[in-house]
């Protein structure tokens, strides 16, 4: 499900749900029931393990807070490739917690509770798992949950591109100085053009003259690779 969080409809619904906590509770229970029923349908259809797990640590760039998200994917006899986000929570273990036990053990505790809530029996249901290459997440999925683990292709590509073009957040880590300098030059030019009204006007005119259309200059943070391609566009 894709929800446009900036839209008025979303904000309206959000306020509505906050003002009526009982309605919100009912909605959550209904969603939970649907997921549990789908899982039961899949379980009765397959004679082998059938569930794919995603466990992802997300960092909010604005608030610098870490979140942990758990998602499952599976097929049933009637539906193909169903995916549900089971839960998302803040991930901020205290120093004591970190020191007392391995982080992967803490990471394991939370999904275990969620599995119980949704009636998922890891040993009989979970076949494979995907995550980034963070050792704690990998250890949780591969060893503690004992699901076959594959590196997420998108995370893998992101790391390969960052290593190649040397545009990691810290320029001192760059292995490809030429590419790193090139990207810094390009981004600087875009920044200058976008800030200067004169240059932007002249750029628009030049675009219309050469291409008969206006294509906007796009800048992006250095650590977001998909956006860097748009910068070159």
């Amino acid at each position, binding site marked *: 499900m894709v929800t446009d969080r900036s839209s008025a409809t979303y904000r309206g619904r959000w306020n509505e749900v906050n003002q009526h906590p009982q309605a919100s509770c009912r909605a959550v229970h209904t969603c939970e029931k649907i997921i549990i029923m789908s899982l039961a349908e899949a379980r009765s259809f397959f004679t082998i393990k059938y569930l794919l797990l995603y466990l992802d640590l997300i960092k909010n760039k604005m608030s610098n807070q870490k979140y942990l998200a758990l998602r499952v994917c599976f097929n049933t006899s009637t539906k*193909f*490739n*169903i*995916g549900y986000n089971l839960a998302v929570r803040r991930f901020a273990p205290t120093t004591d917690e970190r020191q007392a036990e391995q982080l992967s053990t803490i990471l394991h505790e939370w999904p275990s509770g969620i599995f119980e809530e949704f009636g998922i029996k890891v040993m009989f249901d979970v076949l*494979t798992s995907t995550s980034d290459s963070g050792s704690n997440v990998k250890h949780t999925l591969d060893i503690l949950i004992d699901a*076959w*683990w*594959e*590196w*997420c*292709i*998108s995370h*893998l*590509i*992101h*790391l*390969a*591109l960052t*290593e*190649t*073009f040397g545009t990691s957040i810290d320029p001192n880590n760059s*292995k*490809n100085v*030429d*590419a790193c300098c*090139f990207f810094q*030059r*390009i981004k*600087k*030019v875009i920044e*200058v*053009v976008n800030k200067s009204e*004169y*240059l932007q006007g*002249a*750029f628009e*005119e*030049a675009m219309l*003259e*050469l*291409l008969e*259309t206006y*294509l906007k200059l796009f800048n992006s943070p250095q650590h977001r*690779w*998909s956006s*860097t*391609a748009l910068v*070159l*566009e």
Partner: protein
Amino acid sequence: MQAYRKLNRPVPLTDMDCTLCIEFYSMIEPVRAVQIKAQAMQTFVVVDVYVMLYSLYTIVLDVSKPLELIIPVRRQLGSEDLDPVLRSHDVLQPATRETRKLLGKAMSKRYFKRYHPILALRQPKKIYGNKLGRPMLLKNVLEETNFKFLYLIDAQSMLYPPMTSGKILVKLINATNIDRLDIPIGWTQESLQK
């Protein structure tokens, strides 16, 4: 650049930067396409991603093949149907040549190494032996624990009817460059790929 010239300001970019921009974009865009495809939800994309990774490995990242230039403006103006512009690896800018090699290495280290007969194994010395200088396998049937990888994406793709023959997998294995330092004593590249 034209905008800068119109305002009589020093142009911060050179023609070489423009060439570099197109060449870098031609490398990043196919990789980014795989990344975007792999992020899709609620659709089955494993086979598409597998085929895209295959063409990435055997065309875009293969330095013996020319790089197809993807010109962004041409694409945005809807004129990408024109003949593709190919540029041989030796004619590319030095920075592009270096970056293409690095990208191939970075992707191999993380993904394509799984098709390497030596680097994909945990203890290759326990598999590849030799007797009187003749190559000999010490273990004929390899187990899951012998490999560093699970090959789930390959297995999933081979369940898709048009790909059951495993031709793509064979091509990926054959396309793998084997450093001569990685080859065990008594073995050759040909004998390894058999």
